[in-house]
């Protein structure tokens, strides 16, 4: 049975409210404390992206992450490193997601093709202002 989430309003640069597919989730890095956050379902993103500050809240040490990743677009100018985080969505079980943790601060938590959309089947109903999600049937 898929979980259903509403599109959430965010304020644009012009001050207008925009509805975006932001999903509440719980992240945990190794044996650290879980952190609540909202991730943007970005099916156009090739990879998941973790903003630097959220990595700090999770207890991830930048220097200990030695696998370097080169991102594209605006994020290409910032250094990024691979990090594995366990993510729980709704009542579903915890899933290991791999993130490119960027030094950039302004970027939202992005959930992209590798590997969020490999782990979850998502159905967007933008006109109805909601989306449905369930673990992928592999």
């Amino acid at each position, binding site marked *: 049975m898929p979980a259903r989430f509403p599109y959430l309003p965010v304020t644009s640069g012009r001050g207008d409210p925009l509805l975006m597919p932001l999903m509440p989730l719980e992240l945990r890095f190794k044996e650290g404390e879980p952190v609540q956050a909202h991730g943007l379902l970005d099916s156009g993103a*090739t990879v998941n992206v973790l903003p630097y500050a959220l990595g700090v809240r999770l207890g991830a040490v930048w220097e200990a992450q030695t696998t*370097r*990743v*080169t991102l594209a677009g605006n994020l290409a100018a910032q250094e990024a490193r691979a990090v594995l985080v366990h993510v729980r969505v709704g009542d579903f079980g915890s899933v290991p997601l791999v993130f490119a943790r960027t030094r950039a601060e302004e970027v939202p938590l*992005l959930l*992209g093709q590798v590997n969020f959309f490999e782990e979850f089947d998502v159905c967007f109903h933008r006109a109805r202002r909601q989306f449905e999600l369930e673990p992928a049937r592999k």
Partner: protein
Amino acid sequence: MEVTLAVILFRAPYFIILLFGCCPETLPGRAATERKRRIGASFFRRGQLGQQDVIGNAPPACYSACMKLAELMPALHELLRADKFRAIQFLTAELAQGEGGLLPGAEYPIWSPFEAHDAAARLTQYLLEQTETR
């Protein structure tokens, strides 16, 4: 009161000229056509319009603020294909500026890492390594 009336009467010819100058369609028949032709020519002479600023092959006409869309449509229809694209670009830029949206020449960040295939391959490999060692 008398002074005000005198000023209005004195300035009246200028108001009439200003009105017809801004809106030549209000002049009757041939006078309006002649007026539009002369204004178009004067724009070129004074360098206010370059060849790049004029859309289409026709000589520049004076499209005033009081011209209706219905009057413009036949002219737009006659444009060359490339000029129609230029007209669309012009109107899009005008609308964007008027609505306070995207500005020409401004930079807007797109954070989404589109086509980061090397990163995807590296992360997939990292995921396999990390999950196998557990």
